């Protein structure tokens, strides 16, 4: 718990975001934006593949490969794709398009929408400098409202925080 200028206790939460696929992008952005809406001070730390979620233009994908739990509602039932199909060209795009259509139909926010709301609610987004160097991204590839930092930046925040999540 940290004390702000008014002397009131504001709860704080950190989220380490390590994955950049369409499905894994949802939990951190849902929890981050909702916590901020509930008055929590939120810091999100984007590292490894999670860093791509800060790119200006998102084109997120989900693959059924190696994910037997991914069942799509189909004709009143559910269908999962055999792994061998997952390696075929075009299957990743197909699965991604299907999931994006499903989210739209069910009134689920897009990742872009959730990210905008998180930024608007003053969620502090930190991009991992090492990941930027490793995958040769530059800060100008990413949205404007971010800071750069490393492990120590995260630990410093996490030690003072009420909730710390690794996603």
């Amino acid at each position, binding site marked *: 718990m940290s004390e702000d200028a008014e002397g009131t206790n504001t709860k704080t939460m950190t989220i380490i975001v390590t994955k950049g696929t369409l499905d894994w992008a949802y939990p951190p952005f*849902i929890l981050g934006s909702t916590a901020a*809406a*509930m008055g929590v001070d939120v810091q999100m730390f984007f590292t490894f593949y999670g860093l791509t979620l800060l790119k200006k233009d998102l084109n997120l994908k989900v693959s059924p490969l190696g994910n037997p739990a991914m069942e799509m509602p189909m004709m009143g039932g559910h269908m999962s794709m055999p792994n061998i199909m997952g390696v075929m060209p075009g299957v990743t795009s197909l699965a991604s398009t299907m999931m994006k259509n499903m989210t739209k139909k069910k009134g689920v926010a897009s990742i872009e929408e959730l990210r905008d709301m998180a930024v608007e609610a003053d969620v502090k987004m930190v991009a991992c400098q090492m990941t930027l160097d490793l995958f040769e991204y530059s800060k100008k590839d990413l949205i404007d409202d971010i800071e750069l930092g490393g492990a120590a930046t995260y630990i410093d925040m996490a030690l003072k925080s009420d909730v710390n999540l690794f996603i």
Partner: protein
Amino acid sequence: MADVMLDAKGLNCPLPILKAKKAIKTVPSGGTLEVLSTDPGSVADFAAFCRTTGNELLESGQDGDTYRFVIKHV
């Protein structure tokens, strides 16, 4: 009649909460916000939202497939 109305019907988690948070900023202190939702999860979520933010959940009810919440901005 609430001071501000929010129609969150058709929206799924966490959009009703995020939109309610935005809407409640426009409600004067002591005023009320009425939210309509079709997300069954929003019953537990609005109770939790109010517990955490200190706003008061005056009403939580259901009419057919529509859930109705009245929140007092504290």
